[in-house]
């Protein structure tokens, strides 16, 4: 057994185990994404970085050494984790409304843990498939609105009005228009009317996209 210090807490672990086990034993948590206990530990996502004796290393792969001083939280580490998470999100096309994994999504969990990244209300909305308000022809603004409200309105059958603000991601706007509103034939005028509620807060481009849908119908 080797002794290591996780944020000053002394723990004993078998030699050679990855740092993450010592961290968990000490009662701390580090965000992990690509690490799957015993199945995959190639240290590719670099979200679990910790400081070991001042060196930045991935907790999921780096083995413990005797007397190692491990730091799991610091401003520096936070920057790297946020940066890497944002890099990951930049390659992820958000389509929560049609995603099968939205109830068990590691990205969503991590974004909450790191307090980063915006997902649409759909990620919290329990209505899927034919139950989706948009599929029923309702002008629900959920796909364009930032989550965090537990989708209280849509849960109770009330279309989202976008009170939490829009998501700043033009790709997502266009995707939702094509995948949802146009596909299900939502009445453009109704949609515009719903968006008018917080109209002055919407960016020009989004206004234009909504107006176009309205005009086409």
């Amino acid at each position, binding site marked *: 057994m080797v002794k290591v210090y996780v944020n000053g807490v002394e723990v004993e672990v078998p030699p050679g185990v990855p740092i993450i086990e010592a961290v968990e034993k000490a009662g701390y948590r580090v965000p992990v994404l690509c690490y799957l206990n015993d199945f995959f530990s190639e240290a590719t996502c670099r979200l679990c970085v910790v400081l070991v004796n001042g060196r930045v290393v991935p907790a999921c792969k780096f083995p413990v050494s005797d007397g190692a001083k491990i730091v799991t939280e610091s401003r520096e580490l936070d920057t790297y984790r946020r940066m890497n998470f944002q*890099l*990951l999100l930049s390659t992820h096309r958000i389509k929560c409304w049609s995603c099968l994994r939205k109830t068990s999504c590691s990205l969503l969990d991590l974004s909450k843990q790191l307090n980063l990244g915006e997902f649409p209300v759909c990620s919290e909305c329990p209505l899927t498939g034919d139950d989706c308000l948009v599929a029923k022809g309702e002008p629900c603004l959920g796909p364009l609105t930032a989550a965090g409200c537990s989708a209280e309105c849509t849960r109770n059958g009330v279309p989202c009005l976008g009170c939490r603000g829009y998501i700043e991601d033009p790709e997502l706007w266009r995707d939702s228009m094509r995948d949802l509103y146009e596909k299900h034939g939502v009445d453009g005028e109704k949609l515009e009317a719903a968006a008018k509620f917080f109209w002055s807060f919407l960016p020009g481009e989004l206004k234009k996209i909504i107006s176009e849908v309205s005009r086409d119908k």
Partner: protein
Amino acid sequence: MLTQTSLNRILYGSRGFRIRVPISSCTLAAGAGEVYRKVIKVVEEHGVDAEVYRVGCTGLCFMDPWIELAREGLPPAIYGNVKTEQIEHIIKNYSEGDLSEATAVRFKTGSGGPPALEEVDFWRYQVRYVSRNCGLVDPESIYDYIETGGYLGLKKALYMKQEEVIEVIKTSGLRGRGGAGFPTWLKWKIAYEQKNDVKYVICNGDEGDPGAFMNRLLAESDPHRVLEGLIIAGYAVGATRGIIFVRAEKPLMADRLEKAVEDARKLGFLGKNILSSNFNFDVEVYRSAGAFVCGEETALIAAIEGRSRPRQRPPYPATHGLWGRPTVINNVETLAHVATIFQTGVEEFVKHGTEKSRGTKMFCVTGAVKRTGVYEVPIGTKIKTLVFDLAGGSIEGRKVKAVQIGGPSGGCIPAELMDLEMDYESLQSYGAIMGSGGLVVIDDSNCMVDVAKFFTSFTLAESCGKCLPCRVGMRHLSDLLERLTSGEASLEDIEVAQELGESIARSSLCALGGTAPNPILSTLRYFKDEYVEHVVNRRCPAKVCAKLVKYSVDPALCRGCTQCARVCQVGAISGSPGEVHRINYDICIKCGQCLIACPFGAIKKV
């Protein structure tokens, strides 16, 4: 050691007259093949009693192709930039004792005539320690190598115990010449202490940096020295097999190493019971399709195993390497140093260098200098000496602006810091790395943002894609630089570049990702004003970034010759003969053809 008799035999050959023609990838590209054939023809036609002798390259690329004529009684004379039609003339004159046209002579007899090598700038500051045989002996002849004292080091090492061999390298203080500068003896010791019946030693000859070719030069000009070092390393760690990892893009290097291995096997320097000791060792040359990431040792091992990506260390290769066995990986130059240390003794080696890093290092100086080439200088030599004294400084009318040290993963050192003494630590503290030793000299006709963009696009393409920061982060950095060079970026973007670059450098998996943002970070550190200029005034100070420059006609100089209008591919220039021409900016694609074509210098970049 090389005795006078051996040196004479090497210099003049058995017939007393040797004509050296360098045959290596670089000289062949400069036309040495033609020169070689022509020399043979001239010698045959005129009945000159001379031996045409093939050698490797000396590293003086600026005077390729060169030939050296050496006849007993005359000082061996080197002729640079030879053309085939001059050869007849040169051989005739030399035979008659007229050396006036030679660039330099190897040593001087009497006064007057061309300067000796010790007197010319491109040789004077050099210490030819590991490259001593380059350009002197036939790389494909094992006997010539033995004549210069070759395989004597191996013999000495085999008389020692393994610990003693490691101790010799420890006292020499040799550090890895591949870039990181890890003490060689420590690597060996860790591998030596592992209990395992199979161990490997690998010679890393991947060398992927643009602008660095000292490993290729060394292995092409003196392959046996590298091989000898590898055998000594194998003996020290108790390995049974050695692998020389060479890029398939360097066929001559691989061929010569293969020939060296074959010859050494024939003479009993490889195989069972080497030199009557009970040490068994064999070497294989492994050709791999090159990838820059293979310079990283875990990726190199993976490449031999059939995959191509680095992995997180530890476990280090010294304990858990190729096929899970203890493996020592040394650079070509490191191994050549090992062989030379054993041949000439530690004292000779420690004479040069600094307290922390002993010995010499080969540097490739390329870019905007007068004399590009490979120069071997003691570690701790000033950048200034290398760039201005050895390489002759910038081309006429230009000013050296910065030096990119360590290839695409190194950093730019500005001209103000030219007094810096180059060793592993000092370069690191200024944001560059020693790397394999490539120096790209950048003059004031270059835009630093554009330079950073070039190196970033290289590392982006060479990123293996395993870890997130390098794969995605470098893409974002590259996009950001693209925006900067088109004048579409904001000041915030510069800060983002800084933060993102630091994050990639610190949190990436391997050394490639760890050093990939160096060009951006170092240019941001020393040339931030150029970045700001691109954003605030949307102007490229060096007038390089195509989207930020405009071509215009100076009415005072334009004579209306219509040259520019004729070369313009898109028809953006209008004007009739005798009239001042005009450029239509809506159509102009900024190709710069008109600038080259104008005989009066009337077209200006603004």
